[in-house]
């Protein structure tokens, strides 16, 4: 819910309540007042009639009407005064239709000069209804005016007073720790907003310091570790040229070579993971993932062919995401390489992309490790293999960074790696 909706809703509820209760009370009071007024006038009329009867005796009052009925009888009547609301079906003056018209009725029984006299006087209450109607309509109009005013003022206030807040929000949203540029933030006289701004600044400063120190670390670590490895490697290249090497020495040399290689790849992999976790890659490139997959298929076509495997790549719809191309290439390469390494010779590896997800499936024996451990660092299906155990951990991190989900299932003697957009675009 938006801020404006929330505040308006509260206002609306309160004014509605105030108007309903206030309106009801007004109407009830008004009605009572009018009835009292009518009663008084009826009573005055009655007193006049009574006076006339008393002074002039029986007199003709003409035929009874809705407003006035007077009956006489020879026997006395017990005295009583009776007020009552009643309804008479009659013709409305305004629209000439038959309808129920509310009346206030006064019936007085008494004995005057030995005659029983019943006087019934009625007054139409239709004016009262009109009055209620008029009052209600004016209340509703007032309510609408008030509401419109509230909305307008609210919007104005939101726009003016909350302006710095929305600017801050925009800065939050567009903030990238990699930008490292001084942030232009709005000044605000409102205490809460200037507090928010300060909190934001100190938070980003901390994030930038952390980011920079880790970035420096990865750069330095890379340089400091790879340089001695490079020195050792080149030394081996020179040593190799020695004509008088014995076979056993050659074997030792090979061990040295491959250990150095492993060390350097390990270092490379770990630093790559650190860099991904530190979000040192900008993800603002629009990348066609199918093209990246196609490239992987080309990279590994030869390797697959040497194992008599076939790569079957099928893409139905374009699959594009925002991200870092180098990382996505590593992701696709690693998964494909994995499939080739752990698949049966002579099998088919199918890579299917459908626009929202892609999967790599191939027949193979189940991995001797739990599937949830599969993406951990240094997890190896075969400890004796030359694998570093970093490939799938890197895949996992690349997916996390790009908002992709990576899942592994084993069914029908097939490995399935599935990559899905976590939030499918519509």
């Amino acid at each position, binding site marked *: 819910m938006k801020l404006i909706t929330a505040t308006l809703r509260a206002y609306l509820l309160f004014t509605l309540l105030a108007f309903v209760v206030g309106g009801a009370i007004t109407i009830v009071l008004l009605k009572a007042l009018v009835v009292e007024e009518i009663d008084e006038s009826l009573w005055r009329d009655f007193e006049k009639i009574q006076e006339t009867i008393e002074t002039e005796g029986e007199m003709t009052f003409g035929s009874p009407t809705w407003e006035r009925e007077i009956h006489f009888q020879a026997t006395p009547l017990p005295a009583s005064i009776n007020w009552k609301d009643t309804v008479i079906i009659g013709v409305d003056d305004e629209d000439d239709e038959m309808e129920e018209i509310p009346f206030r009725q006064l019936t007085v029984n008494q004995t005057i000069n030995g005659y029983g006299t019943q006087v019934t006087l009625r007054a139409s209450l239709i004016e009262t209804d009109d009055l209620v109607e008029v009052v209600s309509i004016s209340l509703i109009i007032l309510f609408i005016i008030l509401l419109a005013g509230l909305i307008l003022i609210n919007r104005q206030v939101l726009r003016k007073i909350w302006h710095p807040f929305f600017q801050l929000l925009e800065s939050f949203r567009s903030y990238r720790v990699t930008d490292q540029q001084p942030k232009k933030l709005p000044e605000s006289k409102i205490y809460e907003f200037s507090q928010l701004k300060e909190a934001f600044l100190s938070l980003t400063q901390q994030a930038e310091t952390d980011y920079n120190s880790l970035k420096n670390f990865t*750069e330095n670590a*890379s*340089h400091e*570790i*790879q*340089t*001695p*490895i*490079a*020195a*050792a*490697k*080149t*030394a*081996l*290249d*020179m040593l*190799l*040229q020695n004509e008088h090497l014995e*076979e056993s020495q*050659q*074997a030792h*040399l*090979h061990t040295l*070579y*491959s250990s*150095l*290689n*492993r060390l*350097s*790849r390990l270092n*490379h992999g770990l*630093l790559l993971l650190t*860099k991904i976790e530190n979000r*040192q*890659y900008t993800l603002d490139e629009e990348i066609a993932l199918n093209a990246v997959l196609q490239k992987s298929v080309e*990279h*590994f076509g*030869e*390797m697959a062919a*040497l194992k008599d495997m076939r790569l079957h790549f099928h893409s139905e719809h374009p699959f594009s995401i925002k991200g*870092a191309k*180098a990382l996505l290439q590593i992701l696709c*390469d690693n998964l494909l*390489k994995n499939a080739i*390494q752990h698949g049966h010779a002579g099998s088919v590896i199918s890579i299917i992309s459908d626009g929202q997800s892609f999967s790599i499936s191939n027949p193979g024996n189940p991995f001797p490790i739990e599937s949830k451990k599969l993406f951990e660092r240094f997890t190896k299906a075969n400890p004796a*293999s*030359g*694998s570093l155990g970093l490939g799938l951990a890197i895949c996992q991190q690349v997916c996390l960074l790009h908002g992709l989900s990576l899942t592994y299932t084993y069914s029908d003697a097939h490995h399935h790696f599935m990559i899905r957009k976590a939030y499918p675009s519509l």
Partner: protein
Amino acid sequence: MKVLLVEDDPVLGKNIHQYLQSETYVCEVADSFQAAEEKAALYSYDIALLDLTLPGGDGLDLVKKIRLATPETGIIIISARNAVNDRVTGLELGADDYLSKPFHLPELNARIKALARRRLYKGESQLTFAEIRIFPERRKVMVHDTPISLRKKEYELLLFFVVNRGKVLSKVAIAEHLWGDYMDEADSYDFLYNHVKNLRKKMKKAGALDYIQTIYGLGYKFSRP
């Protein structure tokens, strides 16, 4: 061919220097930004090998300076800073190639030769070894003036051998040259073995002598028997 090597690590610098001399390059070493700047200003080199992390400055600035002063110099960045950004920036500033540390010396040699062919001989070069002639621009190989057809990796393998003739090449270095990081070691040796076998067969069929010597457990050497 004159090569300027800018490398601050003394051991690595010495090794590269020695190896390049054995390949008959004239090689000078600078171990700091200032030293490199001076040398580049005083002399002109055919090829400059630049480390990026240097005492006294950033190697990327050297790329700019050398490109400006002597545009004909070929520049190869050799760096442990394997950041994609550095690679892209380096190439944008005018470097011709980027080789990340650690590398094998035969690989460096192959890169230098390839760059020299592109820059110095303007693509009109050919490589000759006995009866074998290679035309790198057209990826063509002739044996006794008869063209032979090689698959992509076989061609790359032969070129790597010919460029690094007379040197013992480890399987590790060759595999890395052919496949980069794409292949795991154990697999790559089998594939390499296959490729060498096929290459030998094709060369022999075309009437070339077998110049590929197997160094047991270690690698190969391409030289006259």
